[in-house]
C-alpha cells in the first residue's frame, strides 16, 4: 500500500525508526510515488540551504575571508549538487536491489527507494548547517548525523527486506562500501570540475 508512505510516516521514521521500518516492510510503494512525494523535497534541501548560505555569507574554509562565488556559478553548483544527490539516491536504491538477491532480501524498487530515503533523511535535514557555510561547523554537524544514518541502514535492512540480521549486516556493509566510494567520487569529480574552471577560481 503506497498510502503508508506519507509525510507523517516518514516523520515517524526520524524518531521511531523501528516502527517505521516495520510499516514499510508491509507496504509495497511505487518508486515514482516515493520519489515525488517525499525524496524529491528532501533532496532539494541541501542544495537550497547551500545556495542561500553561500550566496549570503560565502564559505569559510579556514581562511579569514569567506570564499564568495558569483551567483551564476553558485546556481550551477547547486543544480549540480541536486542532480548528484538524486543520482546518488537512485543508484544506491538500484544497487541495493541488485545486491539484495545475493543476501536473500529481494524486494520491489519502491521499497529500496523508500528505505534509502529514510536512511538519508537525517542527513538531508542536518544540511540546514549549510546555512552557516563554515566547513568545520558542517563537518561537526554531519559526523553524528552520519553515524545515525549508518545505524538506520544497519537496523533497517533486515526489517524492511525481511532477512536475518547477520545477512542484513553483510548487505549493509556492502552498501557502506558503495556509499564510501560514491562519497569519494563526489570529492574527485568536484576537484576535476574546479580544475576545469567551474566553482571557486583556482590558480591552476
Amino acid at each position, binding site marked *: 500500500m503506497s498510502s503508508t508512505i506519507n509525510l507523517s510516516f516518514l516523520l515517524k521514521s526520524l524518531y521511531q525508526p523501528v516502527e517505521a521500518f516495520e510499516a514499510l516492510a508491509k507496504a509495497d510503494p511505487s518508486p515514482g510515488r516515493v520519489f515525488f512525494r517525499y525524496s524529491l523535497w528532501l533532496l532539494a534541501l541541501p542544495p537550497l540551504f547551500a545556495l542561500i548560505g553561500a550566496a549570503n555569507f560565502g564559505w569559510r574554509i579556514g*581562511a579569514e575571508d569567506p570564499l564568495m562565488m558569483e551567483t551564476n556559478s553558485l546556481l550551477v553548483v547547486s543544480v549540480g549538487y541536486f542532480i548528484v544527490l538524486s543520482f546518488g539516491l537512485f543508484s544506491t536504491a538500484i544497487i541495493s536491489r541488485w545486491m539484495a538477491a545475493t543476501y536473500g532480501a529481494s524486494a520491489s524498487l519502491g521499497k529500496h527507494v523508500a528505505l534509502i530515503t529514510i536512511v538519508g533523511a537525517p542527513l538531508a535535514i542536518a544540511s540546514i548547517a549549510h546555512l552557516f557555510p563554515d566547513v568545520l561547523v558542517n563537518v561537526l554537524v554531519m559526523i553524528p548525523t552520519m553515524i545515525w544514518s549508518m545505524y538506520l541502514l544497519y537496523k533497517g535492512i533486515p526489517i524492511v527486506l525481511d532477512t536475518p540480521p547477520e545477512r542484513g549486516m553483510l548487505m549493509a556493509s556492502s552498501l557502506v562500501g558503495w556509499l564510501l566510494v560514491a562519497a569519494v567520487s563526489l570529492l574527485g569529480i568536484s576537484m576535476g570540475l574546479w580544475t576545469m574552471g567551474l566553482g571557486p577560481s583556482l590558480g591552476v
Partner: protein
Amino acid sequence: MSDQTYHDNIALRLIQFAVIWAIAAMAAGVYIAAELVWPTIDFGQFWLSFGRLRPLHTNGIIFGFGVSALMATAFYSVQRTCHTPLFMPKLAWFCCYAWQLIVLTGGLSLLAGLTTSKEYAELEWPWDIAIALVWVCFGIVFFGTIAQRKIKPIYISNWFYGALIIVIAMLHIINNLAIPVTIGKSYSLYAGAQDAVVQWWYGHNAVGFLLTGGFLGMLYYFLPKHAERPIWSYRLSVVAFWAFVYSYIWAGPHHLHYNSVPEWVQTLGMGMSIILLAPSWATMINGIMTVSTAWEKLRSDPALKFIVLSLAFYGLATFEGPMMAIRSVNIVSHFTDWTIGHVHSGALGWNAMITYGTFYFMVPKLVGRELYSKKLANVHFALALAGTMLYIIAMWAAGVSQGLLWLSVDQLGELSFSFKDIMASMTPYYLLRLVAGLIFLAGTILMAYNLFMTMKGKEAARVTVPAVNPAYGMN
C-alpha cells in the same frame, strides 16, 4: 596421518610482537597527531620532534606490525596449504627474532636522527643490509616449505605471499643502493629526478606488494577458513593475482605528478593506476561473495565482522587511489591531508582490520582455547570502525580545504592565502584526527588485553599434519 606437527609457536610469537608494535607505533602516531595541535609538546627534545617520531610511526606500523603479522600468517598458512611443517624451523625462529631486533634498533636509530630521508626507506645502510639478509631467510623458509609440499597445487594465498617476498626484496635492495660514508650516513646511488622515480617505484610498491599483496595472501587463506566456504571464484583469484602483479609495478610515478619527471612517465603511472582498479575490485568482489554465503557465522564469530568491514575499506581505498592518481584531481589533492586520509583508510580500514579479524580467529585456534571475551571484541569492532571513519572524514575536510586555499589566487594572480595561515586554520581537524587516533588505539589495546588473556600461560597446541587427499597429492 603422519606424526609430524606444524611449527606454530613461531606464528604465536610473531603475533605477540605484531600486537606490541601496533600499540607502540600507533601511540607514536597519536603523539605526533597531538603535536600538530600543540606543537610545543616536543619539549625541545629532538627525539620527540615530529620529524623523528613520524618515520618511527610509519616504519613501526609497516615493518613492526605489518611484517610481523605477515610473517606469522605466512608461516601458519603455508604449512597448512602444503601439508608439511616449515622448512628449516630454526631459520624461521631466526627470522622472527632478528626481525624484531631490526625494528627495535631501527626505531631507536630514527629517534637518534639517523635517516636516509627516503620516505618508508628511512633506515640507514646497516639496517638495510640486515633487512635484506633476514628477508632472504624468510624467502628460504617460505619457498623451502613450498618446495617440500605434499599437495601439488600451490594455493592462491601462497602466490600472494610469494610475490610479497620476491618483489619487496627487489624493491628494497634496488632503492637502498647507496655509498656508505660513516656507520650512520650514506648517499643514495641515484640523484635528482632519477632518485625520485626509483624512490616512488619502491614507495608505491611497498604499498602494493606489502600492504596490499601480502595482506591479500592473508585474506585468501583466512577468509575461506573463517567462513568455512571455498573462495567464491578460484579462477577469478588467479586472474586477479596476475593482473595485480603486472599493473601495480608501473603505478609509482603518480606520486610525481607536476614534478621534474617526463610527462609521459606521469601519464603512464596515471594510466596504470586506473587499470589497477580492475584486479583490486575483482579481489574485493571475490571476498564479499565468499563471505556473503556464510552470514550465519556472524552470530558466533565477532572476528568475521572485521574482515567484512576491511573489504569495504579495501574497496574504498583501491578506488580512491586511482582517482587521486588522475592529474586534474591530484593537482588539488597532492600535498594535502587528503593523502593522509587515503593512506589511513587503507592502513586502518583495510590492513589493521583484516589483521585484527585474523588474530581473533588465529589465536584461539593456536592455543586451543576460546577467545577470552567476545564482548570486548565487539567493543573493539565499534571503536575501530568509529576511529577509522572519524579519521577519514576529518582528513577529507582538511584536505579539500587545504587544496582549495593554497590554489586560490586573487585578481592580480597572486596567492590569496599564506601557507602558515592555512595550517593554523587546520587545528580543529587535527584535533578531530587526534580523537580518532585515540579511539582506534584504545580498540587495539582492548584487543591486546583480550588476546593476552586468551593465550595466557599457553603454548601453541600441537597440530599433526593431516593425510593428503590422493587427488591432490604430488604423485
